[in-house]
């Protein structure tokens, strides 16, 4: 559907061009010297060909269906005055611009490109630097944000904005973007049916990707590295998370993924590597975790508060300092047929499944939850002895928290 | 050659030497005698620097030995109990000691003399007590030095080896004027045969010093062994 609409826009542009649309060149030596005046004289479905050069403009309003095409990345310098481009019309394409110096404000969210109540937009090949907000979609549906590069230099959360923000927007495709150095790489609020694929979101202050009150979204094959936390999914339903990589999100409150009040999500085939906490789960129910890799995390999964009927199956837990941590004695979640590198059991009947159940929660993880400094005793012989005795007769850890069918070999 | 002044030594609660003075001039064979536990071995070990005295001064070759080690180059020592690293072969042990001392040695004759040839490639752990003692003697005598200290050299030796040992000691004495030999032994016959002078230790001090004839005179005994026994009983009675 989305692809179809995109195609439609494209066809319309092409046909518009051949039938009645014209191309207006903008450059320092052209008759049209500024983008604003170009938009003014253009008719609907015209193309503005912006030649190489620097255009010191801001508050550019696009109020008719136009294509703004940059030739060799012309620079639009907002000189920190405020918003730079506002799209307030359907069927607008922005392609190949280099936009810098968006104004910073504590009262309004200035963006490099803001789309307001418009449909069928396409924003691609845009490079944004020195920005506040990057691409801001506001109540705009059926659009595409493709292959853009957003490089921020945010230092503090309170005076920085998000790279790509969707607010009350539906059916938008966010694909192959690179976002770094902003507050949230990609932020969704009240936005449903969004597809987020193949993006690389790194070094952001808060989250690589952030969902709030957004349902039925899917994100696949993205990479989240070294953010405050990789992905935060909060108060949302039916989110699909497939094949993403969460890496090196280090710090006291750093997670590969944070799930808070999430229901009915599917988390398949993701890789969580070297995060302080792979997945931090709070009050989330009916989530399927399957075929994920948890590699060398501090805690692969940390479960806080009430989480019911979650299923963890066919995952690989490899060399994590702690596999699972619980803060309660209750367990209503199922662990089945996972591979645990810490498993020391045997498989006498050679069916590939260990004959002794694996208990992924160690007593030591309780002690560390209670007294964090004890982390320095990790892997000491004394702790191993204590953990062993707890394993033999569980006192502090949930009795039924075990993987009855631990795999002997890695899956996938 | 050796000056010892006011030597005190205590092993935990056991006071072994209590202000011992001894002056041994150049040349001659001195037998250090005394009952068990009288401090003979301790005295020798202090002279060698193996035991450190609590109080008192020791000079060897006219120089104080405290914290020194080079003077041992000039001393040959035959320890009381012949214990060796058990992993080594006899040949290796000899080579090692030569390597450590870096002095000219004449072990060939000595090996011949004590018939050690067949044992050269045997491990020291497999040797009998007597054979070990022979190796011990070879190690002590193969270097040429002005001071010789022999602690119970006769232990475990068969008669022919004992004769060879006595000859060796005599030869050492004649080889060069001014060679000094200290020897301890419980075999009085051996002492009588080799010693020029007797130093008798008792309760951590020198109780008697002089020649064998002086000793016999003093104890009014005609037999050396009895004379020695007499000093011992005299003191225990007194």
């Amino acid at each position, binding site marked *: 559907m989305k692809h179809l609409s995109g195609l439609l826009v494209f066809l319309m542009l092409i046909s518009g061009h051949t039938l009645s649309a014209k191309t207006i060149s903008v450059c320092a030596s052209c008759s049209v010297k500024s983008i604003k005046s170009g938009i003014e004289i253009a008719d609907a479905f015209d193309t503005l060909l912006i030649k190489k050069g620097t255009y010191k403009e801001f508050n550019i309003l696009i109020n008719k269906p136009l294509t703004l095409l940059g030739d060799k990345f012309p620079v639009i310098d907002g000189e920190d005055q405020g918003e730079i481009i506002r799209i307030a019309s359907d069927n607008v394409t922005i392609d190949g611009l280099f936009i810098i110096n968006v104004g910073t404000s504590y009262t309004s969210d200035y963006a490099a490109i803001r789309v307001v109540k418009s449909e069928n937009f396409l924003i691609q090949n845009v490079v944004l630097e020195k920005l506040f907000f990057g691409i801001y979609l506001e109540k705009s549906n059926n659009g595409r944000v493709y292959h853009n590069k957003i490089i921020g230099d945010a230092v503090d959360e309170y005076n920085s904005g998000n790279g790509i923000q969707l607010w009350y927007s539906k059916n938008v495709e966010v694909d192959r973007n690179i976002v770094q150095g902003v507050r949230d790489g990609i932020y969704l609020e009240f936005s449903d049916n969004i597809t987020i694929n193949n993006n690389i979101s790194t070094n952001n202050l808060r989250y690589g990707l952030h969902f709030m009150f957004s349902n039925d979204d899917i994100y696949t094959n993205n990479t989240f590295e070294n953010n405050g936390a990789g992905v935060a999914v909060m108060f949302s339903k039916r989110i699909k998370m497939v094949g993403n990589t969460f890496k090196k999100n280090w710090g006291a409150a750093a997670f590969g993924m944070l799930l808070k009040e999430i229901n009915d999500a599917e988390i398949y085939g993701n890789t969580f590597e070297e995060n302080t906490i792979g997945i931090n789960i709070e009050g989330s129910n009916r989530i399927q975790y399957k075929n994920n890799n948890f590699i060398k995390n501090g805690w692969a999964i940390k479960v806080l508060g009430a989480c019911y009927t979650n299923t963890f199956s066919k995952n690989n837990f490899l060399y994590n300092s702690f596999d699972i941590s619980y803060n309660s004695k209750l367990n209503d979640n199922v662990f089945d047929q996972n591979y645990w590198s810490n498993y020391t059991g045997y498989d006498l009947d050679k069916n590939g499944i260990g004959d002794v159940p694996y208990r992924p929660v160690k007593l030591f993880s309780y002690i560390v939850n209670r007294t964090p400094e004890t982390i320095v005793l990790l892997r000491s*012989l004394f702790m191993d002895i204590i953990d062993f005795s707890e394993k033999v007769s569980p006192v502090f850890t949930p009795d039924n928290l075990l993987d009855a069918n631990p795999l002997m070999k890695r899956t996938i | 050659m050796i000056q010892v002044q006011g030597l005190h030594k205590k092993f935990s609660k056991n006071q072994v030497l209590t202000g011992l003075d001894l002056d041994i001039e150049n040349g001659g064979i001195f037998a250090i005698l005394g009952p068990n536990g009288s401090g003979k071995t301790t005295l020798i070990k202090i002279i060698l620097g193996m035991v450190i005295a609590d109080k008192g001064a020791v000079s060897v070759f006219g120089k104080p030995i405290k914290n020194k080690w080079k003077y041992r180059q000039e001393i040959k020592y035959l320890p009381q109990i012949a214990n*060796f690293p058990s*992993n080594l072969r006899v040949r290796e042990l000899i080579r090692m000691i030569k390597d450590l001392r870096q002095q000219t040695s004449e072990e060939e004759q000595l090996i011949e003399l004590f018939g050690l040839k067949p044992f050269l490639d045997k491990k020291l752990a497999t040797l009998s007590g007597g054979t070990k003692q022979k190796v011990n003697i070879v190690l002590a005598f193969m270097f040429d030095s002005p001071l010789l200290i022999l602690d119970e050299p006769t232990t475990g030796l068969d008669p022919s080896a004992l004769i060879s040992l006595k000859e060796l000691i005599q030869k050492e004495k004649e080889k060069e004027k001014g060679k000094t030999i200290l020897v301890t032994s419980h075999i009085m016959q051996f002492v009588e045969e080799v010693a020029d002078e007797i130093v008798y230790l008792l309760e951590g001090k020198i109780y008697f010093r002089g020649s064998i004839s002086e000793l016999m005179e003093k104890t009014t005994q005609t037999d050396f062994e009895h004379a020695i026994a007499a000093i011992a009983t005299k003191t225990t009675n007194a």
Partner: protein
Amino acid sequence: MLKILKYSFYDLMRSRWSYVYFLFYLALGFVLLFLNNDVSKAVITLMNVIIVLVPLIGTIFGVMYYYDSKEFTELLLAQPLKRSSIFLGQYLGVACSLTLSLVLGLGIPFLLYGLFKSDVIFDFSLLLVTGAFLTLIFTAIAFNIAISNENKIKGFGYAVLAWLFLAVIYDGLFLMSLIIFEEYPLDSFSLAATMLNPIDLSRTLILLKLDISALLGYTGAVFKQFFGTNQGLIIAILMLILWTVLPVWRLVYKSKKKDF
């Protein structure tokens, strides 16, 4: 000293135990790598072995060698040799042969496995360096205990006790004090307590590589500074060197005063 080292070293190279130790590590390395086919897991298992077994073997071997070579020592003492060089030589002989057994025993299987192509090479070399340090430290501690105790049985007892204390009991007391005083800021204390035990120190050094993600989860500023920067690595290595030097220094000091 080098001569004594040479002879002690040869002596040990000839002894059955060096080979047992070497073969043990060789077998361990092969079993871990070729039966498991998982280098990362092998490195983690090795860490446990190195933290527990290397100090134990260093201690027992050190005490054993000291008592066994008593005759050798006495023979040497009568030679024109410096006392400190006799003991240092013997100590280094033992420590070097143990270290060599460890490094070769583990190194050969890992080399054959093609470790250089793997990215755990740094973790592995850190393991070996730590193992070498632990050998040096615990052999020195063992020599210290042996030189202070004429009685062989007593010496052995104290040595095993020292190992048990540093390997297990210390951490138990450490954990208890952390839990009892949990209301207080404890990060400086816990780092200091770690520094005072060479086993904990080595463990920390390895944790810096293996579990850095978990270590960074704690909020304390001192921890962050220690684990988050190179400072931790540098301090830990300096402390390990200090831990090696101190017992060796005491050994030299004691050897000057001892009677034989």
